Each structure stands twice: as C-alpha cells, then as structure tokens.
C-alpha cells in the first residue's frame, strides 16, 4: 500500500503489520498525551513534586536523554573534524536518535514549567549568570541544528526527492552541512556542560556543589565528558534493539567495534576523572562545609553507598574495561552487557545529580525527603520514549537510514536485480559532498 514510499530495494514488513505495531505504541502516546493535558489543565499539582522536590523525575529525564542523545554531536565532530569516515554508517541514525532525544527534552521542559506560556521569558529576560539560561539557549539552537541535519534525510525519501526543489534543497544542505555541524558542536559542548553546571553552581547544596574553574564548576566538564563517553553505548543499544526487531543487520561490525572502542576509552578516562572529583569532594569540599561524606549516603531508605558503587564501579569502571579490551569488546554478549551497564551508569549519574541533591537534608534539623512520581509524571516521561519508537519505525521504513543495510543483508541480490538498487539507500545523508 505504501510501497511507493519505501526506499528502493529495501524490504519492509506489510503495511497492516507495521501499523498494528504503530497503533500499540500509539496507545502509549495517547496515555502520555492524556497526562500532559491533565497537567496543563489542572496544573503541576498532578505531579508528586513538592517544595522539596522542585526538580524531580522530569529534570532527570531531561538530563538523561540529553546525555545519551549526545551521539549526533559527537558523531558529527568525529566524522567532520577528526575525519573518521567509518562513522558514515551510523551518522544518519545518530542524528535521528539525537533529534528524538532533544525534541523529547524540550517537550518535557514545556510540560515541566509552571507557566508554559511564559517559556519565552528565558530568552527575552535572560539572566546571563544562570546555567539554565545557557542550557535553554544551546538546547533550542542545537535542536534547530539537529532538525537541519535531519531534513535532508527526510527529503531523500523516494517521493520527496522527485520534487525538484526538495532535491536541490537536500543537496545544498549537504553541501554546507559542515557549517551546521560545527555550530552544533559548539552549542552542544556548552549545553552538555551547563547541564552539569546547573547542579554544580548550587552553593547552598553541598551534595552537588563543586569548586570552579573560572566560572565553570567541575561538573560542567564532567557532564560534557560523560555525554561524550556514554553516547556510543546508547546509540549501539538502540541499534541493537532495532536490529532485533527488524531481524536484519543494519550496521557493520567494523563500525560497531569502532564505536565500542571509542566508548571504552572515553568511559575509562571519564570515570577516572569522576572518581578523582568524588574523592576531592568527599575529602575537601564537603568537610569544608561541615559535612562528612557519609552524611549523604546514610539515614534514609534509598540513597546508600551502594549507589555510589553502582555508578562508579559497576556501571563505570566495568563497562569501560569491557569495552577497552579487544576480546570482550568483540564478544557480542559481553559488549551488550557493557553498553547496557554504560547506559544505566550515565542515567544513574544524572539521577544522583538531580534527585539525591533534593533528597539530602542540609539544615541540621531537616530530614531526608524521598519522592515517588505520580502516574502523570511517569506517563509524560514514557511519552517521549513511545514517540521515539514511532519516529524510528517511520524513518526506518521510509527513509534511507542505514547505508549498509543492502550489503549486510542481501549481498547476492545485487547481482540478481537489473537496476542498481543500492545507490539511493547507500548515500550517507549528512555527508559533505
């Protein structure tokens, strides 16, 4: 029914089967939209946030999706600036994942603010001293960059590409993509960092506060670094899930191994820096403010030392080592374990830097405050996940996303078919020409 839209030579499941699947995920989207509607209609009292938890599940989700969605920026950086050509096999997908993550982050922020109609105040009445202002600026513009990087891929759809204007537009955008990518790289560096700065500058919160290098707290650099370290894990994980669902191999082993290797070294270097930062904070920063570091990990039901161990060792050092060593990196099961641990690790770090910060008592007579999100918060947090699944499904079905799909899955058919079917699907979209 929709075969005219499917890339030439690509094999996709039947129209009813595909849209049955979309309908199931669509139901989850509707659930999320219902919660969103309730929140806009009745207000943030629909959440379980309170005056202790002004920042909660949503801000965590924001930080987490941006950390794992950093792939588009780093793939672009490595491909265009460091000229690692191998990454052309995954750059389209990285851009799509980035687009989903960043649009999700903006969506969640739009739900999260108490007066959504005043959201533009952050631009119009900007306080240049606030890390959140920097986040908003860079996030919005980087999302614009991602949209620009995504558009040519959409225009390469078989039908869209027949329109002369779209064909030329996509071609021209390829032509100057390096300018967009460079702008995106600069913006992305700043907002990944400023998201870390959000927690690090709060000098009233000794759990998150860090010393500064000039105007930037150490968390600024650690957040950028961790996003750079963990994005390949998420990109590979989503690729693996997509491959499992489609039953096809979509990205070649060489690219997967390269990404894993990058992740291994970046995670290991990051986790060393993070451990040094933690030790310095625990032995110098916190004591100078009157706190023994164990204060932040005791006398409550959830936040114990196990959390620190899980974040740093189990989901930091371990995946780093597994991905550095060739034997474990090229073992598909151990690699999968490592990338899952990595994704958990970076999400846990973001959780700690938002939720635990709010939970810890600072005044000596104050108490720990724990929090469980309401169904409305959960539904609106799952909403972007469902939307992401739908967008990946649609792009996989209708756009030439994976340049290697043909050669990895139907190497023999190339000879059997008369027309050269590989070409449209094999063109890396964001490549400069």
């Amino acid at each position, binding site marked *: 029914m929709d075969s005219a839209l499917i890339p030439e030579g690509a094999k996709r499941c039947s129209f009813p089967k595909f849209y049955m699947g979309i309908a199931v995920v669509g139901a989850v989207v509707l659930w999320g939209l219902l919660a969103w509607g309730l929140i806009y209609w009745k*207000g*943030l*009292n629909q959440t379980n*946030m*309170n*005056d*202790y*938890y*002004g*920042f909660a599940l949503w801000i965590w989700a924001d930080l987490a999706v941006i950390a794992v969605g950093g792939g588009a920026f780093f793939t672009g950086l490595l491909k265009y600036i460091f000229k690692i050509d191998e990454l052309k096999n995954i750059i389209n997908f990285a851009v799509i994942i980035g687009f989903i993550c960043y649009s999700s982050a903006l969506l969640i922020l739009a739900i*999260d*603010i*108490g*007066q*959504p109609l*005043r*959201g533009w*105040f*952050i631009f119009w*009445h*900007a*306080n240049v*001293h*606030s*890390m*959140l*202002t920097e986040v*908003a600026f860079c996030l919005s513009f980087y999302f614009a960059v991602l949209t620009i990087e995504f558009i040519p891929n959409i225009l390469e759809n078989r039908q869209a590409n027949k329109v002369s204007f779209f064909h030329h537009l996509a071609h021209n955008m390829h032509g100057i993509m390096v300018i967009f990518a460079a702008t995106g790289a600069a913006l992305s560096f700043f907002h990944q960092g400023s998201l870390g700065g*959000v927690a690090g*500058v*709060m*000098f*009233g*919160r*000794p759990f998150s506060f860090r010393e500064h290098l000039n105007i930037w707290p150490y968390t600024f650099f650690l957040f950028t670094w961790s996003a750079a370290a963990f994005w390949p894990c998420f990109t590979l994980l989503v690729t693996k899930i997509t491959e499992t669902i489609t039953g096809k191999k979509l990205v070649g082993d060489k690219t997967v191994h390269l990404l894993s290797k990058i992740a291994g070294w970046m995670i290991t270097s990051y986790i060393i820096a993070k451990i040094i930062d933690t030790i310095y904070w625990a032995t110098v920063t916190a*004591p*100078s*403010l*009157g*706190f*023994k570091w164990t*204060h932040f990990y005791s006398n409550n039901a959830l936040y114990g030392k196990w959390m620190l161990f899980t974040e740093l060792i189990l989901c930091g050092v371990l995946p780093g080592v597994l991905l550095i060593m060739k034997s474990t990196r090229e073992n598909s099961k151990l690699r999968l374990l490592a990338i899952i641990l990595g994704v958990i690790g970076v999400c846990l770090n973001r959780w700690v830097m938002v939720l635990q*910060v*709010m939970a810890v008592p*600072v*005044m*000596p*007579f*104050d108490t720990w*405050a724990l929090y469980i999100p309401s169904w409305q918060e959960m539904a609106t947090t799952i909403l972007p996940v469902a939307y992401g699944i739908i967008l990946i499904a649609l792009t996989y079905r209708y756009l030439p996303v994976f340049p290697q799909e043909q050669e990895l899955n139907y190497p023999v058919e190339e000879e059997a078919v008369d027309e050269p079917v590989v070409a449209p699907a094999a063109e890396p979209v964001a490549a400069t020409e």
Partner: protein
Amino acid sequence: MKQEHNKAHKFGMVIDLDKCTGCGSCMVSCMSENNVPFKDDESDKKKSITWMRVYKLTNGKSFPDTEIVYMPRPCQHCGGKGDHGHSPCVSVCPATATDYGYDTGIVSQIYTRCFGCRYCMGACPYHARYFNWWDPKWPEGMEKYLSPDVSPRMRGIVEKCSFCYHRYQAARDQAYAEGDKDNIPEENYQTACTTACPAGAIVFGDLNNPEHKVHQIVKPDPHPDPRNKHVVGKSRNPKVFRLLERLGTNTKVYYLSDREWVRKQGDNYLEGEWDKIKNHHGDTSHG
C-alpha cells in the same frame, strides 16, 4: 566600634529563640498580610505555602533533660558569597524573576516574570521558596480581607517572604513626603511577623544603621571572616548565629540564644569541630 552610616540599607532581623514560644503568630500574620492563599488540604506541609515557617528543634536528650526550641524561618535574604548580591536563588534564576536589591539587601520575587522552572527552589537550602501548585483560593467572603498592597500570586510560579516589601515602599514614600528620603525611621518599616510576635522575639531593622536595635544586637562584622573569605557580616555577639553560615550564603536573618546546643543547630560541624570554633565570632570585632 564606630561604623559609617551607609546610604544603602541592609534590612535584616534577629530572632531571639529563647523568647520564641512557638505560638505561630508570626506565621498567621505573615499569611494574612501577604495574601497567602488557602488549600483544601493543608496536611501535606511540603506543599503548603508558609513564607514564615516555625521549626521545632530538640536537644535530642530524654526526659528530664529534654529541651525544645522553636525556630521561625522566613526567607533569609542571602547576600551570597562575599555578600555581593549573588544569592543562591538570584544567581540561578534564568529569567531574572528574582532579584537582589542592592539598596535594601532584600531578595525580591517578580511574580509576573517567574515562569515556574523552580531552579531557585532547588538552590535554596532553607526551603524558603514555595511553589503555587494550585490556583490561589480563599474561603468565600475572605477575599474581601485581602491586602490591596500585595498582589496575589497565580498558579505555576514561585513565591517567598519579601520582608513585607510593600511596608518598605510605604515607609519610603512617607520619608520622601517628609523631605528626608534617606532617613527611614526604624518604627516606620517593620515586617508583619515582627509586629505580631507577642513575645517580642523578632527585631527588625537596618543592619547598616548603628542606631537600629538589630544592628546593636547583631554587631555585624563588615569584613570577611578570616577563616572563610566567603562569609561577611558575621555577628560579633557570641550568642548570635546564622543558619548554614559556612556555606557562604550570608543571610540577613540572625538568631540569638543563650543555649549552646541551640547555636550548634545553626550549622553543620564535623566531629570535634564545634568545640574549636564555638567561641569564634567576627574576628575584627575589637574596639
């Protein structure tokens, strides 16, 4: 101990915890003065709006040695590190919806500017900031008792104690009218909680004005604390302390108590640390 009378005011208060009975008059008068709305269910205190909140502290000892103290906690109107006006909340607000008044030392909240991101609430260690989770509501008829000098707040924004700023504005207007705009007499500007306290536990005034009682009790040290350069305005009165002073928030709300265990509750100390520094008050307080 001579001090120049600065032109800029620095309004602050000192609360005598030994006088406070925990009656809650300050809280009630504050809510009434500042049009704080009601909720159907006020049982969840983490969602109730209490600009002035009274905490109950104990010395942790069992009967008959138990002692209790009530600690009223308004917004602390922090001056931030080095007292430069970069309060924890002011410095993080992305839309400049909360501002530091360099002429008064008061941290303001611009209700029509706030878009409800709540970053300021996360940054405040005193939980002095409150979010309007609901639309403001008053029992029928009670809206007639709302103060015309204070704007009610809408759903989805943050609010907090303003040191009854509208009373400052009225006092300033009066001073202008009387031709001496720089001189606001102490009694012309007093917060609602101060005037309502039956025990007279709250003293409010200009910390920069040596004639004001609050200055005389606190004796603020204008120089940075040699032990922590971020701390400015440390009290030279051995019985006076501030909440979480070590963080460098430089609050303008001081507390007074004869009892050592109460003073110790004002900040966090490592083991053995309190005994070393409990007698340290503004170092430059000689003469």
